[in-house]
């Protein structure tokens, strides 16, 4: 049963700490997305990769956020230092290629206190 796997499912951390969220895309999918979901902003695209290369990360605060794909089976989203306003649900999604259905992970609910 192919699925996108995100870890951790929940994370509570103190302001100023580093947070790393991980995503395992579906095998064979060459496009990976990171989204942030909040009540006010909805689903915001933070970054996306195609064939492990970052194509667009304009939605991401560059001073504290970074996204990478060390290999085809792992995507990471890091926040350093974290702030209370980063509290949100972070989703990873993958698709076979452009214009095809994106499959979502179950999200990481991040709370920064």
């Amino acid at each position, binding site marked *: 049963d192919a699925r996108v796997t995100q870890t951790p499912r929940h994370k509570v951390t103190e302001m100023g700490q580093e947070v790393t969220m991980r995503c395992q895309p579906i095998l064979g999918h060459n496009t990976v997305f990171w989204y942030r979901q909040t009540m006010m902003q*909805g689903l915001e695209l933070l970054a996306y990769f195609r064939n492990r290369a970052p194509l667009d990360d304009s939605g991401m605060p560059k001073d504290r956020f970074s996204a990478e794909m060390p290999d085809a089976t792992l995507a990471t989203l890091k926040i350093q230092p974290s702030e209370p306003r980063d509290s949100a649900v972070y989703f990873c999604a993958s*698709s076979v290629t*452009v*214009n*095809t259905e994106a499959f979502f992970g179950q999200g990481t609910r991040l709370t920064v206190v």
Partner: protein
Amino acid sequence: AQTVTQSQPEMSVQEAETVTLSCTYDTSENNYYLFWYKQPPSRQMILVIRQEAYKQQNATENRFSVNFQKAAKSFSLKISDSQLGDTAMYFCAFFGVSTPLVFGKGTRLSVIA
């Protein structure tokens, strides 16, 4: 930049009735896909239906159908015979050749018994 607009933040419908959710988008691309995703309280993002822009025929999946008006850049979702399990947030999304998957703000649908 591509934008997706859902003008109805909340809607409600009686069980077994029909409801239509609106979505408009803005793009200069000619080849793209449109999607409706459902997000129940579990927060899992589930694909409901997809439409290829080059297809004139409206997509249908069981009780779900779309009204795709390419010239008007409109993509509404019709849910027939509404069921309690249809209660969820519904997101309209656009995916172009040169545009990553972007979402509208969502419509919260409540099905009332």
